[in-house]
C-alpha cells in the first residue's frame, strides 16, 4: 500500500485499527481530540467499539475492564487527561493487563497550554500513578514513527502484560505527513486464557480467573513487586531503542533529545557541520527503558566535551542523561517549556556556548 497524507492524530487512530485493535474509549482534550473524532466514524465501519466516556478517570477503568477480558484496547489523551488516567494505569500495571495509552503532550503544570510540550517525561517514565510500576514508553519523532510505534505497542503490551504508552507531543498530533501502515506490523492478539476474565466456559481449565490488585499479605505483595521488577529489567535488556545521529564524526558536543525536539536538533547538527562544528546526537526512541549504554558510549568518545539534554521540559530528562553518562562528561540542559519549539539557530547557539571557547571553530562564531 502506498503513502497517504494524514494528520498525526488521525494516523494514530488508523494505526491502532491496522494493528488489530478495534476497541477505543476516550475523553476529548486538546490537542488530540481528532483521534476520537476520527475513530468515532472509522471504528463502526470495521465493527469496532467506540465510546466517549464521562471522564478520563472512567475511561482508564473502561480500558482496565476491557483489557482484563483479554481484548485489545487503547485510549488517547493529553497531559491533564493522563494525570486523571494515572489512577487506572497503576491498577492496570498492578493487574498485569496489556493496554496502550497515547499521550499527545501539551504544556503544564495545571491546565498549562495547548501547544507542544514534553513536560510529562517524569509522569511517563517514573510513575504518574502510585506504587512500584513502570510503563514501556515510546517516543515518536514523526507521524510515520508514531504509526509504527502504535502498531508495535499492542504485541509488546501483551508480551509483557503491561501498559505501553506512546509519548508524543502536540506537534506530532497536529502536523500532516505522508504515512504508510506496514502490513507486517499487523498482529493477532495473544491467547490470554491463563488469566483473562473472558468467561469460564470458553476456557479449557474450567477454573475462574480473577483479575485483582489487592494483595494483603506482605510477603506475597513483595513477591508480586519483584515479579513486576523482573519484567521491567527484561524490558531494559530487550526493548531499548534509539537512533544515533552523526556519531561517526569527532563531535565535541553530544545532544540527547527525543520526539519533535530531536528533529530540530538534527537540523541544528546539519547546519553546525556546515560551519565545521561537529555535534552528535543519541535520540531515544524508548524513554523507558532508556538508552543508557548508547549514551555512555557516545559521551565517552575522546572528542566529546559536553553532553546536553535538549527537551521541551525543564530538564526532566537530565537525571536520566546524567545517570547514563556516569560522570564521564559534564551534562547540561537546554530547552523551553511554554509551547514554542526552540529553533535550529537557538540550539546552535546553545551548543556553541556549552562547548569549550578554546575551540578554533568558535572564536569567530558569534552569530549576533
Amino acid at each position, binding site marked *: 500500500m502506498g503513502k497517504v497524507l494524514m494528520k498525526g492524530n488521525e494516523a494514530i487512530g488508523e494505526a491502532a485499527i491496522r494493528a488489530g485493535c478495534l*476497541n477505543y*474509549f476516550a475523553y476529548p482534550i486538546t490537542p488530540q481530540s481528532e483521534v476520537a473524532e476520527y475513530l468515532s466514524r472509522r471504528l463502526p465501519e470495521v465493527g469496532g*467499539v467506540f*465510546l466517549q*466516556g*464521562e*471522564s478520563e*478517570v*472512567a*475511561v*482508564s*477503568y*473502561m*480500558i*482496565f*475492564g*476491557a*483489557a*482484563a*477480558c483479554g*481484548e485489545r*484496547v487503547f485510549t488517547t489523551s493529553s497531559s491533564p487527561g493522563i494525570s486523571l488516567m494515572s*489512577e*487506572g494505569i497503576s*491498577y492496570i500495571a498492578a*493487574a498485569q493487563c496489556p493496554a496502550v495509552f497515547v499521550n499527545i503532550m501539551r504544556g503544564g503544570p495545571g491546565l498549562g497550554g495547548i501547544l507542544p510540550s514534553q513536560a510529562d517525561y517524569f509522569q511517563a517514565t517514573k510513575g504518574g500513578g502510585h506504587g512500584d510500576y513502570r510503563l514501556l514508553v515510546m517516543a515518536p519523532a514523526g507521524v510515520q514513527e508514531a504509526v509504527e510505534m502504535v502498531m508495535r505497542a499492542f504485541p509488546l503490551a501483551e508480551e509483557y502484560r503491561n501498559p505501553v504508552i506512546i509519548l508524543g507531543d502536540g506537534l506530532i498530533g497536529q502536523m500532516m505527513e505522508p504515512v504508510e501502515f506496514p502490513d507486517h506490523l499487523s498482529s493477532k492478539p495473544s491467547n490470554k486464557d491463563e488469566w483473562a*476474565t*473472558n*468467561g*469460564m*466456559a*470458553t476456557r479449557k481449565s474450567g477454573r*475462574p*480467573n*480473577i*483479575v*485483582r*490488585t*489487592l494483595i494483603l499479605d506482605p510477603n506475597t505483595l513483595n513477591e508480586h513487586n519483584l515479579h513486576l521488577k523482573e519484567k521491567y529489567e527484561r524490558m531494559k535488556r530487550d526493548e531499548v531503542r534509539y537512533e544515533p545521529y552523526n556519531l561517526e564524526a569527532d563531535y565535541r558536543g553530544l545532544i540527547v533529545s527525543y520526539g519533535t525536539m530531536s528533529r530540530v536538533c538534527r537540523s541544528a547538527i546539519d547546519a553546525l557541520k556546515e560551519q565545521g562544528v561537529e555535534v552528535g546526537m543519541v535520540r531515544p526512541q524508548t524513554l523507558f527503558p532508556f538508552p543508557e549504554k548508547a549514551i555512555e558510549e557516545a559521551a565517552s568518545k575522546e572528542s566529546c566535551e559536553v553532553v546536553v539534554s535538549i527537551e521541551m521540559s525543564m530538564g526532566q530528562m537530565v537525571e536520566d542523561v546524567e545517570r547514563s553518562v556516569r560522570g564521564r562528561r559534564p551534562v547540561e540542559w537546554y530547552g523551553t517549556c511554554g509551547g514554542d519549539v526552540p529553533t535550529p539557530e537557538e540550539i546552535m547557539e546553545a551548543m556553541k556556548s556549552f562547548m569549550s571557547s578554546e575551540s578554533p571553530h568558535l572564536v569567530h562564531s558569534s552569530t549576533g
Partner: protein
Amino acid sequence: MGKEFTRPQALSEQHTHYCPGCTHGIIHRLIAQVIDELGVRGRTVGIAPVGCAVLAYNYFTFDFQEAAHGRAPAMATGIKRVRPDLMVFTYQGDGDLASIGMGEIVHAANRGEKFTTIFVNNTVYGMTGGQMAPTTMPGQRTTTSPLGRNIDEIGMPLKVAELLSTLETPGYIERVTVIKPSYIVRAKRAIKRAFTYQLQGRCFSLVEVVSTCPTNWGLTPMEAVNWTADVLLPYYQLGEYKSPDTREEG
C-alpha cells in the same frame, strides 16, 4: 427423594470473613442461586468493589475483576462494550457507589449500559471502620460523625434508587432488603429480573439492598435488624422504582 437444600454451584466453600449479622452472605447466596438458575456461570464476570466485599471473588466460582473505589461501573462498561455476550454485574457499597463513584454510576445508568449493579446500602463505610457515608441517616453516629450526622452541614442521606430513577433512559431499578425471609424472596426475584433484563440486552439494572452493619452500628445482629426495619425502611422505601416494562406500557 434427594437433597432439597444445597450450596449453589456458583458459591464456593470458602468460610466467610463477614461479621456476624452482616447481610453480605445472604446477598451473595441470592446472586449465586440466580446465576445457577439462569445457567450463566460460564459467562459471568463479577466486579468486586473496594470495601468489605472486595474479597467477594473468594465466595464465588466464576470470573471476577476487582475495581478501584467507585470505578466498577466504568469497568463493567469496558467489559460489556467489548464482550456483550458476557453477563456482568458490579457489587458495590454505599461509600463506593454513592460517594466516590457517583459519576461512574450515573453515566453508566444513563448510557443504558447492559450490566447489573447490586448496590448494598448499609449506611456506613464498613471496611475502613464505620465512617460516615452519603447514606448515613440524620443523627446517626459514625466514627467521622461522632455527634451524629448533622444535616445542616452534611445534607440529607442520598436516595440512590430514587435519584437514578429520574434518568430518562430506560432501566430497571428496585430497592429490596433481606432482613426477613419474605423480603429475601422478593430480593431474589429482583436480582433475577435484573440479570434477565441484562441477558435480554434490554437495559441497565440496579438492585439496591438495604443491609445491616451491626459491627459499625454498635448493635447486636438482632438490634441491627430492628433498627433497619424501624429507621432505614421508612426512609429507604422498598419497591420498584423504574422498569422497562412500565415505560413501554405507559
